[in-house]
């Protein structure tokens, strides 16, 4: 394949990564923004979403689209409720102290991961996509002085991958509408701005926290359900999304949602493109060092305006 079509293919793969990453990272960013705590178990909620999607899809049976549709609704719901319960039983009791929360969520990380290993097992299992048509993409080429369309070999995507990108965009718009246009969003933003003042105005801050923590985890789970038909469900799959979400949230400015989405697109696309040209290990080293240095020298992030 020539360079042009190759780059287009890498960008398309990157766009799918970016879409799923945006959902996961917005979940993490929301939790950090409103509650000022870092949820290290976020990647495990992602993994839990994928594993539940497999479980639901195999239990429901019938046409793959049916099982998938049920999983799309039920898996994030279950994960969200579990996360809200974890918030009420653990995080509330450490009074959302930033450092103790990190330690407690590291504990949660191991608990979720190892319980999944004990019940679901160490296998990687696929979920069938609800629909999957191969779409060849044309490319233009100059032949004997005139432009011609042709279909390069290997340049294709699937209808499902495009649907993932579309679905992520719709959900992100929904999150934005929830925060900006509804009463519950208003309450969340009030809590984020000034917790004590919100309490004084009669906002049940602890219930808001549980809701936000659940919502953040549910977004990660939703991203995972969307990605399992492309990538299999495995009990260790939470590590990479956690690291990438961290990177995205930091680059985008801690707690800033538009910044997070912009950074997710940037990181997702460049991850797709860089890993085509460099060794993936080297790409990861560069990315982690970059993030560390951004935090050291520009703690408000590349797009953020507010200090962390």
């Amino acid at each position: 394949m020539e360079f042009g079509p190759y780059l287009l293919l890498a960008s398309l793969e990157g766009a799918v990564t970016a879409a799923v990453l945006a959902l996961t990272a917005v979940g993490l960013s929301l939790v950090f923004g409103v509650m000022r705590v870092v949820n290290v178990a976020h990647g495990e909620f992602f993994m839990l979403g994928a594993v539940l999607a497999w479980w639901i899809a195999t239990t429901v049976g019938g046409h793959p689209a049916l099982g998938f549709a049920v999983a799309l609704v039920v898996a994030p719901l279950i994960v969200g409720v579990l996360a809200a319960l974890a918030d009420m039983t653990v995080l509330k009791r450490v009074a959302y102290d930033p450092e103790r929360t990190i330690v407690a969520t590291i504990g949660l990380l191991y608990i979720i991961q190892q319980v999944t290993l004990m019940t679901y097992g160490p296998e990687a299992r696929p979920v069938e996509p609800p629909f999957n048509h191969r779409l060849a993409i044309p490319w233009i080429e100059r032949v004997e002085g005139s432009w011609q369309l042709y279909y390069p070999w290997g340049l294709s995507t699937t209808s499902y991958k495009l649907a993932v990108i579309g679905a992520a965009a719709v959900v992100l718009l929904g999150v934005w509408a929830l925060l900006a246009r509804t009463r519950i969003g208003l309450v969340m933003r009030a809590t984020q701005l000034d917790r004590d003042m919100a309490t004084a105005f009669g906002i049940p801050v602890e219930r808001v926290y549980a809701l936000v923590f659940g919502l953040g985890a549910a977004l990660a789970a939703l991203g995972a359900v969307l990605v399992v038909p492309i990538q299999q469900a495995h009990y260790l799959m939470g590590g990479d999304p956690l690291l990438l979400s961290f990177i995205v949230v930091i680059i985008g400015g801690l707690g800033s949602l538009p910044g997070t989405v912009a950074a997710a697109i940037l990181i997702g696309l460049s991850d797709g493109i860089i890993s085509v040209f460099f060794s993936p290990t080297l790409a990861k080293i560069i990315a982690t060092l970059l993030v560390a240095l951004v935090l050291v020298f520009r703690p408000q992030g590349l797009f953020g305006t507010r200090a962390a």
Partner: protein
Amino acid sequence: MNEGLGKSAALHVGLIVVLAAIQFVLPEYHQGNLARIMVLAGYAAGYNILFGYTGLLSLGHALFFAAGMYGMGLSIRLLDAAPAPALLAGLAAGAVVSLVIGVLALRTAGVAFMIVTLMFAQAGYLTILLMGAYTRGDEGFVISQAQRVMWGIDLSDPVNRYYAALILFAACLLVTLRLLRTRFGRALIAIRENEERARMLGYDVFRLKLGAVVISGTMSAASGAAYGLLFGYAGAGFASVQYSIFPLLWVLLGGAGTALGPFVGTLFMFYLIDLSSGLTTAYMLVAGVVLVLVTLFAPQGLAGELRRRAWRWLP
């Protein structure tokens, strides 16, 4: 105060004497375990200086442990160095790495400090994988018995190994106790209690914290180097996130900011995992549950609770 000093000296010297004597009665399996625990307790003691006494929570100490281990291991493997200079190379590697990381990471505070140290450690781990030609990556490399004879003493022999581990642990304990009696050590505690006030009183907080990072990192590197030399193996697994979490877990469990805590926590956790790995392969579940329970119910840790309830003089 002086009475406390006497009691504290008696307690810590007593612990070392008991550890030295118990070797004669322990079965070989537990003797090996205890040697491991003592080396790892040295690592935890290093972590405790930064976390327990200075109040800085790092999630990247595996980088310092691995710097010591690979500084030692690679000088033996690639340069054919003798064990003593190799150990020094490990220490030097730990000091340099912790100085560089300290200068960068200490520009941040709180949650950002935790993430920055985590990211640097992750970059270090990936670098070890990338340099697979020298480090053999995840698989690691073995340091043969012939390469582990220091000054005519074969460190692969269980009894020699046990005493070498004890010497390392005693040294780490001594450095911790000594540090607490110096102006520097007391200034670190002042920073932990109230950084703004320490700054107001005219302390150069950045330099003090940098000193704590370097001492802590070098002590961790010493344990990493000793671990590699005594057990004859260096692998990338020791640089992974898990090995940054472990010292945090041990110190939290044993009691952050107590000299004895790191050893108590390491001992307790090591045997907890050892016993549960007989029951299930998912032994990290135990680590997770303990982490959550300790954060919820005993934020002071075991030795901390002991100090709160009975022995107020515990350093």
